[in-house]
């Protein structure tokens, strides 16, 4: 017996490792590691990653703030024109909002959902070309917990999946493991935004008869117990409808540009699972989406 074990010890060792890998991949409810081992690796690696990415950031900073400013004067003039136009537009929107009853509802929503946020910097990108996550420089010490939503000024970035004292791992919306319950702002058609580990996402499980068109804005529904309702996810690029089946499908362009992701905000609020549909409808918080066509 011992001779047999000695003879096949290499194969046995591989089988043991195979079993360990398969068990850890399949047994975790949450596919990303959040245990003490994960915290240890992330805790050790993050300072090193920061050390490695700092020179790159410095070169980028020099390029962006000095070398790339050659056309800044003409660009500045153009931007002034745009700012003036936007200020006028903004003023008219403000007046419309103040005049409408919806503004009050929007204000109520903001008061109820004005969750505290923590700003954070992206310090490392995903090492694998097939997955999309980033490491940010704030962690449990800043009050961050796994499952918290991450946004930036444009919209939804992702959710926290791993936390150490001073860093967190954020699974991006475009990762293939990401799922967000969302709806179309214009028609209220619901579906699931699924990452594809590419620049785009898919909007799946949309009822075949629902009205979804290219250019439609997608917002979080709040029903996935992660993201608050009304955050912008992306815009519909194209629609795909098979000649048969219950559902139609859309390709989504996320509003966040993940190639230049530098600063994000973590919403320090863990959400509970939503109530039953009837109750949810009666108690549904009023959102930015309800206030008008423009978020």
């Amino acid at each position, binding site marked *: 017996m011992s001779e047999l074990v000695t003879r096949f010890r290499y194969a046995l060792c591989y089988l043991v*490792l195979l079993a360990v890998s398969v068990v850890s*991949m399949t047994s975790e409810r949450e*596919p990303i590691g959040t245990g003490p081992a*994960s915290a240890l690796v992330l805790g050790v690696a993050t300072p090193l990653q920061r050390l490695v990415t700092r020179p790159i950031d410095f070169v980028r900073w020099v390029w962006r703030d000095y070398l790339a400013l050659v056309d800044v004067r003409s660009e500045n003039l153009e931007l002034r024109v745009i700012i003036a136009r936007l200020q006028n537009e903004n003023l008219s929107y403000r007046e419309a909002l103040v005049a409408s009853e919806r503004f009050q509802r929007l204000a109520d929503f903001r008061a109820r959902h004005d969750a505290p946020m923590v700003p954070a910097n992206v310090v490392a990108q995903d090492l694998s070309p*097939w997955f999309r996550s980033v490491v940010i420089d704030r962690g449990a010490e800043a009050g961050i917990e796994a499952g918290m939503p991450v946004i930036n000024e444009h919209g939804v970035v992702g959710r926290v999946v791993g936390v150490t004292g001073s860093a967190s791992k954020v699974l991006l919306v475009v990762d293939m493991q990401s799922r967000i319950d969302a709806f179309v702002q214009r028609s209220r058609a619901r579906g699931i935004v699924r990452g594809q*580990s590419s620049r785009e996402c898919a909007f799946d499980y949309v009822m075949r008869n629902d009205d979804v068109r290219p250019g439609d804005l997608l917002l979080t529904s709040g029903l996935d117990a992660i993201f608050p309702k009304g955050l912008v996810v992306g815009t519909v690029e194209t629609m795909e409808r098979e000649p048969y089946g219950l559902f139609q499908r859309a390709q989504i362009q996320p509003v966040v540009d993940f190639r230049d992701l530098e600063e994000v905000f973590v919403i320090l609020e863990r959400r509970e699972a939503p109530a039953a549909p009837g109750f949810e409808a009666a108690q549904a918080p009023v959102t930015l989406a309800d206030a008008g066509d423009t978020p």
Partner: protein
Amino acid sequence: MRLIGLGLALLLLQQLLASVLPYAFRPDLLLVFALALGFRARAIESLLIAFAFGYGLDELSGAPIGLYALLRATACLVTHVTDRGLNLRGPWPWVVYVAVYVVVDTLLLGQVLRLAQPDLLLPWSEVAIRLPGSVILTAAVAAPLYRLFKRLDGDEEVPGLAPTALSGSGTL
């Protein structure tokens, strides 16, 4: 110990490359490392090292925990087994082997993902776009990396096949 250092250095270098290179042009340095580990005489130790670095990769990426641990241990095992039948140690055979294995590794990744978490599907259209760049760059760094690997590793290698005219001249 020096091999562990090399592995950590490659992990950091891969991190650096991830910051500056687009997704379609990234060499997989740790895959080359895991493949090279398969040549070592201390086979079980090499398998465990490959597994450990795969686990590190799992932790530092968005991958499900265990995925890269399994794939890197498998890469080490495949080299260990293949090296008995084919001469992989000539410069060209090694480069071709690494290039082919990058494709095999991606196919394995897709299959393991499908088996372990059936709702996760590798976007094959995206794979088709990114894979050529990854294959070329990984193959390009394979030879110098292996030379470095051999220089740092004092371990005696498993004797492989003698190089032939068809499989390339000399060893790396």
